[in-house]
């Protein structure tokens, strides 16, 4: 306490105030006069001509064409499927999921990359079985023939008059001929809200299952009890999925798509936001694009780790790649010279 006796608190406090405000001013000198003057090295001139990733992007040889997707729309786009025989591509967009219905939109793209038409299906329990869009009550053969109408199943034993043994024989005969088979249990068929009281009494109370068979491009529906336990099981198929390019290492040059340069703009939490300059290539031609991206600096072999939601689909037999961006907009990359010839 002897030291404090000599100390003049008024003076001490003034010195303390000056010291703290001095440090405070120093921080501003550091942030404003020093740190603020540090600039990113200027963008090399070769990147000035890169175009924003979008429908208007084109070079002399290549152009990006928007197939599907408005920027404002909320939707989910599933990876494209391809029919190996005709080369047609099926795109499935889940546009809306509400409590009352799912809005599915299907798109047909031919082998040259032109959008043929689309089909809107608003219902629950929609599935795909090869080219067919299947609902327990109806189906669409739209992907094959372009007819946008619902098609009914050809009913077998809808009056439920076949006995157990006859039903089994009927099932086995149909199963032998069928290329695709799909089962629906009675609970999911008749246990729902939309089913009429008559149907409910007739089918739900008798535990009537339904099995659909594809026989010579026509779907048949067999009704009967305990069909789910029948031998054989489902025969389901999907169209070929198109090979997706692994874009985890977007910074490594490859002959398809890579980031040629990244221009940092601002720092986020352990990452940088900025503009990525992409080289998108088809054959010997390059389309130069830019898009906003986030980068994480990490240790190791590949120092830059790009965060993005770009998807790139291309099979060897396809003449064009399909590119899907983070807003689920679907583009194809086309060669312009082919169109002129």
């Amino acid at each position: 306490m002897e030291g404090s006796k000599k100390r003049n608190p008024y003076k001490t406090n003034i010195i303390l105030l000056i010291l703290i405000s001095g440090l405070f001013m120093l921080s501003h000198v550091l942030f404003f006069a020093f740190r603020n003057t540090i600039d990113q090295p200027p963008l090399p001139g070769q990147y000035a001509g890169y175009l924003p990733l979008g429908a208007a992007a084109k070079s002399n040889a290549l152009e990006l064409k928007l197939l599907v997707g408005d920027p404002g729309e909320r939707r989910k786009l599933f990876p494209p499927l391809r029919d190996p025989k005709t080369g047609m591509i099926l795109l499935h967009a889940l546009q809306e999921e509400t409590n009352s219905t799912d809005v599915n939109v299907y798109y047909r793209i031919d082998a040259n990359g032109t959008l043929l038409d689309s089909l809107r299906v608003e219902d629950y329990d929609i599935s795909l079985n090869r080219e067919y869009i299947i609902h327990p009550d109806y189906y669409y053969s739209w992907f094959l023939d372009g007819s946008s109408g619902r098609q009914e199943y050809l009913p077998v034993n809808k009056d439920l008059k076949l006995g157990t043994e006859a039903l089994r024989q009927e099932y086995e005969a149909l199963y032998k001929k069928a290329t695709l088979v799909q089962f629906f249990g009675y609970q999911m068929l008749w246990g729902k809200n939309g089913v009429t009281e008559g149907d409910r009494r007739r089918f739900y109370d008798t535990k009537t299952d339904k099995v659909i068979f594809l026989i010579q491009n026509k779907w048949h529906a067999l009704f009967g009890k305990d069909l789910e336990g029948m031998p054989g099981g489902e025969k389901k198929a999907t169209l070929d999925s198109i090979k997706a390019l692994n874009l985890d290492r977007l910074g490594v040059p490859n002959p398809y798509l890579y980031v040629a340069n990244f221009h940092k703009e601002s720092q986020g939490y352990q990452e940088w936001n900025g503009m990525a300059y992409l080289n998108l290539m088809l054959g010997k031609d390059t389309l130069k694009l830019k898009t906003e991206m986030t980068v994480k600096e990490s240790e190791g072999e590949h120092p830059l780790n790009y965060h993005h939601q770009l998807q790139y689909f291309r099979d060897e037999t396809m003449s064009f790649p399909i590119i899907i961006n983070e807003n689920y907009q679907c583009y194809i990359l086309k060669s312009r010279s082919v169109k002129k010839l």
Partner: protein
Amino acid sequence: MIKSQRLSTSRVFTIALLVSLLAVIVCTASSDSLYALFFFASCSPGVFIFTIIYCYVILALEARGILYPNVFFRFMTPFLFFTLLSWLFLYPGYLSDFQQYSVAEYLDIFMDFSFDFLLPMGLCMGLISIMLPPVGKEETGLPDS
């Protein structure tokens, strides 16, 4: 020498209660979110306890002769100290890289920071400095050096 100030329990609890109320009101008023009230209200016990500790620390520092017992110094010294601390910790959320701010832009950013943090902090500290027991003239005898 300065006699150490006596701080009655009722006084320090009144200060802490008023400060935690003021903090909730000011923070909620300066925020846009509806949930801000719930958030800041849930923080107020912490503010309450911190205020009690803060009052005793201020008085202890005054007794040691580091702070001068006066409303201005009681307010200004800790306020500047906490301003410096919060600015050093929080500036990355306000200043972005490679932005080449002009003086006006830089001042704008600092004003944003001030409204977010310094205004509620300053109001609470001001209230404390006013409500702490005043120093009687006969007790503030300056040392003879």
